[in-house]
């Protein structure tokens, strides 16, 4: 399909407000009847843990105003195969990860290869609150208040050369601290990649915090990528190396199941996985599914990068 200038959401796809409100009323009634089984009545910032705070972050125009997913859900429903293949145990298992000291090595086709200490990385870059939609390839989504800074700030500091066409990201490899790496279900360490223009895009951030505090281990501490218009697995966690390369990197999920996962993995409601239909998604905490938006609703900002590209072929 060619990207045209048409809006991401056809007017016909938007739920009529009366229907929507009717659903909300049903939802309220249903939740009362089932003792609020499906509704998270807890306030968004419930029970923040004793994690250290971060330098003050400024708000960003890229943030969404949608209702934030509660902290408890963001930190207890994690796909982090370095710890476990279920979504509940990383919350406890990730406690074994040592995130200080931590360094991130930036190398490859750059004029100034640098190894950054995590504290310097946080101090050197002014932090921003970025409240982003997060869409998992499994069909669920969240609204997550990240704290971070644009990746392009770091990229400018290391001065990429003309050979830098892609950026390759690598997660820590340490089976002692990451018990999931003792099994060979995936090829370790986890590798992700972006095209240079995607990496330079202002929406692409390195996140170091969540809900105003240091990132919890299970969410990818101490530093992770966040690319909100792509499926969640592109947003690689616990990064130790960022390399600028000429060839498109072989990323972990593409290597594991090439027919199912593509390098781009842009959120696309028309793209049908053999495991999940991507047309709709369940926002965590909601009863009703909602339509999935092309580029996760960030089409206005990112669609031009894929103009003329067949998104069905380059999935």
């Amino acid at each position: 399909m060619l990207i045209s200038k048409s809006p991401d959401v056809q007017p016909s796809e938007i739920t009529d407000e009366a229907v929507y409100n009717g659903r909300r009323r049903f939802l309220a009634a249903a939740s009362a009847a089932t003792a609020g089984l499906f509704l998270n009545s807890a306030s968004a910032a419930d029970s923040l843990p004793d994690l250290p705070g971060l330098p003050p972050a400024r708000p960003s125009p890229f943030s969404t105003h949608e209702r934030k997913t509660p902290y408890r859900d963001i930190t207890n429903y994690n796909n982090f195969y370095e710890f476990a293949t279920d979504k509940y145990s990383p919350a406890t298992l990730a406690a074994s990860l040592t995130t200080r000291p931590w360094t991130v090595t930036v190398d490859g086709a750059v004029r100034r290869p640098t190894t950054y200490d995590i504290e310097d990385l946080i101090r050197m870059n002014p932090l921003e609150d970025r409240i982003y939609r997060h869409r998992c390839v499994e069909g669920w989504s969240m609204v997550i208040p990240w704290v971070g800074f644009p990746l392009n700030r770091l990229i400018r500091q290391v001065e990429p050369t003309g050979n830098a066409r892609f950026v390759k990201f690598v997660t820590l490899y340490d089976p002692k601290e990451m018990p999931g790496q003792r099994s060979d279900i995936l090829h370790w360490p986890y590798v992700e990649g972006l095209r240079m223009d995607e990496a330079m895009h202002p929406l692409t951030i390195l996140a170091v915090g969540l809900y105003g505090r240091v990132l919890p281990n299970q969410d990818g501490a101490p530093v992770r990528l966040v690319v909100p218009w792509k499926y969640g697995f592109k947003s690689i966690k616990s990064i130790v190396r960022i390399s600028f390369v000429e060839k498109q990197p072989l990323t972990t999920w593409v290597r594991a199941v090439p027919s199912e996962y593509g390098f781009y993995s842009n959120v696309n409601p028309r793209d049908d996985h053999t495991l999940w239909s991507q047309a709709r998604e369940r926002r965590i905490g909601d009863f009703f599914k909602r339509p999935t938006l092309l580029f996760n609703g960030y089409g206005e900002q990112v669609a031009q990068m894929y103009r003329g590209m067949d998104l069905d072929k380059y999935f």
Partner: protein
Amino acid sequence: MAPVRILWLKRAVFAACLLPLAALALEGWRRSLGANPIAAIEHSTGRWALVLLLVTLSVTPLRRLTGCYWMLRFRRMFGLYSFFYTCLHVLSYVILDQFFDWTAIFHDISRLPFMTVGFASFVLLIPLALTATNGMVRRLGAKRWQALHRLVYVIAIGGVLHYLWLVKLDMTDPDIYAAILAVLLGFRVVMAIGCLIRRPMTERLPRLPADGAE
């Protein structure tokens, strides 16, 4: 086993089979089903449907191995409980997950292989549940009834495939179900081959004179 003891055991097993549902309800009430309660309900009911199906299929081999005929009296209950959890599983998908969005449901069943095979197994299970009474055995005749209920093997294979195909990567758990099913079906294959081998041999033996008996 004495009939009274079997009756009490039956009551206990009946109650025990409701425990997974009770545990699920309790977790729901305490709001401890996690961030995605709908997925938790789907997974739990699906898991117990499959577990009870395998329990049902293990009754005959256990009876053969132990010689305890009273075990057969539990087979129907396990089978119906498997159907019960299958219904809860399907209902949780149709109501909680899709909320009667028939287009999405049709799309899932026609496009996603794990949904196709899961739905087919559910449909095949219905006639088995409907004919689970003594009256139906009589009406159909034991032979036809038994032929119909052999569908359970197809259903069990379908149920395990449904699980195998929906898992993204870590096959450990569905592999365990597949291995147990392989043992249970393998037992029947061995028994069937044993019968085939034995039958021609008995046919070859000279018939015993009937007059000398008793």
